[in-house]
């Protein structure tokens, strides 16, 4: 086999210009696919972390059956009671993969500075649990002023645009109003402990984070609408969802569990879009690689017709001729991928060095353009393109093998 690889390699080097063009096409295709995959890899990681930690979805969310469909019209009926919350948290936190399980209550209403009022959407959270969920993400969307505190019931974190509209700054006070679960109007004093940027224009003028107990007081209830569960590793999500679903059902709790992927609408949309673009780029690269290899090998077969005749006369069987050209195609694919890998790493290093930023549509702040190196994708793509080049070379190789020996020897 080594001698045939040697012949294939030398033939590739012999036709330098043609081989260079083919190798360049494969290398550019390989680098383009890997760079885009590196970008989406980073984006998916970022969006996943953003959903789980930044938006505080956690890995799993436990709801009472019916909450997602009817919770808005009959919230009291579909919220989790205090006893249910305690039971669920104790069952969930017994699992070794669970970092924490924390109740939340999402509320809506009006917020005013005394002169101007506007609507708000707020999330009532237990501050220390929220901090644990956010973890390093706090640095990405920092709070100006003071964060939520467990011992300060009336302190809230307000989205920057909302605070600006109301002319509220950290330590300034306002009033929050909402209808309780019984339908009575309730109003509470509030202090803006800190302000933060949600990162999205559509929410930056509406969002508030408040202590769970404050949200309960606003709705005049001791219930929660969900329990957010944080796991040690995101890949455990589905397995744990299934296990908890069984255990909670056995405990007689009428609940349903949603994964972060089911709840993160933005993640799903972006992933769908990027996956489609990736498929499109990948298909273009496939066509380029296949056409380049077929063209190069077709030319090689034509130019080396007499050589094929000679090899056949020396006793090389038809499948030996096929193997020789198929190997040459595979070697072209391999060398192209190796060159593409070098190109990929160079571009990756340049991007890291320059650290460019861009503002995606709908975002209120720029994000860094980061491209990851994904070794699994590189390896798989290399194997795939080498195999593809081999298959693409088989067509001209079979034609070469089928040629009549006498005709081949007489070819000029």
């Amino acid at each position, binding site marked *: 086999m080594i*001698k045939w690889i040697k012949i294939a390699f030398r033939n590739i080097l*012999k036709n330098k210009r043609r081989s260079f063009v083919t190798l360049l096409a494969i290398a550019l295709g390989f680098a383009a696919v890997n760079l885009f995959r590196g970008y989406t890899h980073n984006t998916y990681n970022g969006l996943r972390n953003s959903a789980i930690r930044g938006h505080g979805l956690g890995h799993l969310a436990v709801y009472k059956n019916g909450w997602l469909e009817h919770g808005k019209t009959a919230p009291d009926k579909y919220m989790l009671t205090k006893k249910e919350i305690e039971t669920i948290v104790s069952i969930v936190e017994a699992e070794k993969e669970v970092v924490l399980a924390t109740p939340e209550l999402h509320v809506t209403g009006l917020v005013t500075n005394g002169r101007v009022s506007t609507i708000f959407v707020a999330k009532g959270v237990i501050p220390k649990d929220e901090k644990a969920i956010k973890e390093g993400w706090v640095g990405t969307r920092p709070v100006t002023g003071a964060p939520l505190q467990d011992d300060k019931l009336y302190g809230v974190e307000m989205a920057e645009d909302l605070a600006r509209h109301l002319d509220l700054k950290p330590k300034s006070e306002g009033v929050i109003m909402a209808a309780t679960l019984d339908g009575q109007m309730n109003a509470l004093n509030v202090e803006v402990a800190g302000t933060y940027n949600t990162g999205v224009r559509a929410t930056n003028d509406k969002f508030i984070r408040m202590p769970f107990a404050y949200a309960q007081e606003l709705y005049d209830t001791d219930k929660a609408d969900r329990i957010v569960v944080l796991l040690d590793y995101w890949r455990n999500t589905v397995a744990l969802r299934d296990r908890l679903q069984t255990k909670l059902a056995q405990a007689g709790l009428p609940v349903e569990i949603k994964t972060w992927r089911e709840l993160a609408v933005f993640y799903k949309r972006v992933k769908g879009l990027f996956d489609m673009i990736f498929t499109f780029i990948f298909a273009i690269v496939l066509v380029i690689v296949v056409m380049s290899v077929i063209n190069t090998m077709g030319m090689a077969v034509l130019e080396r017709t007499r050589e094929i005749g*000679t*090899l*056949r*006369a*020396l*006793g*090389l069987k038809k499948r030996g001729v096929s193997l020789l050209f198929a190997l040459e195609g595979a070697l072209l694919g391999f060398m192209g991928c190796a060159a593409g890998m070098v190109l990929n790493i160079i571009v990756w290093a340049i991007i890291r060095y320059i650290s460019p930023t861009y503002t995606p549509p709908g975002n209120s702040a720029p994000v860094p353009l980061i491209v990851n190196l994904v070794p699994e994708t590189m390896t798989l793509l290399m194997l795939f393109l080498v195999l593809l080049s081999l298959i693409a070379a088989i067509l001209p190789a079979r034609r070469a093998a089928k040629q009549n020996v006498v005709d081949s020897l007489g070819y000029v």
Partner: protein
Amino acid sequence: MALIEIKQVQKEYQLGETTVPALRGVDLDIDAGEFVAVWGPSGSGKTTLLNLIGTIDEPTEGDVLIGGKSIKKMSDDKRSELRNHTIGFVFQGFNLVPVLSALENVMLPLQINGTSSAKAKEIAISRLEAVGLKAFLKHRPDKLSGGQQQRVSIARALAANPAVVIADEPTANLDSETARNIIGLMHQLNEMEAVTFIFSTHDQRLLDQVKRMVRLEDGKIANGGE
């Protein structure tokens, strides 16, 4: 039993709608160790006859037997094996693989039949020594003269220790002195190694070294067939 038996062989080529007869009922026996020249004017059927003996072509009628085995009954793979083990080829245009050195070209038939690289190298070096090219082992064909390339080609033809070497117009691309040397070398190897040599030529000046001459005319043996 003769090494090569050609029995009532006819060969026709189809050129469009025209059938062109190249051989018209040739009978010929060649024994092991013979040094045979097939000669005649252009278009007399020399190359066709050598292609049939070399099993790279099939007769339209009749049969060719190599070592008593009919080539008509052989599969393509079996014929490839027969060529590799029993027949060596020397071509008019040398037909060396351009990306391989002289040594690697000579190793090729051995590597095709699965001989280990070390053994193939050892045999190839001895063959190149025998044709006087020990100093040119690493040279690629484009760095060798026509005569040197043909010597490499002869060494390659002998590498797998074949029973017969077929040379179609081996001197056609060489000057007369080199041509004479090449025929002399083939003759010398024929006597030393007892390998059967069959070569075609239309140059009568080369025939004085030949033991047996087969003259073809219009696809038939004019003389030398017995």
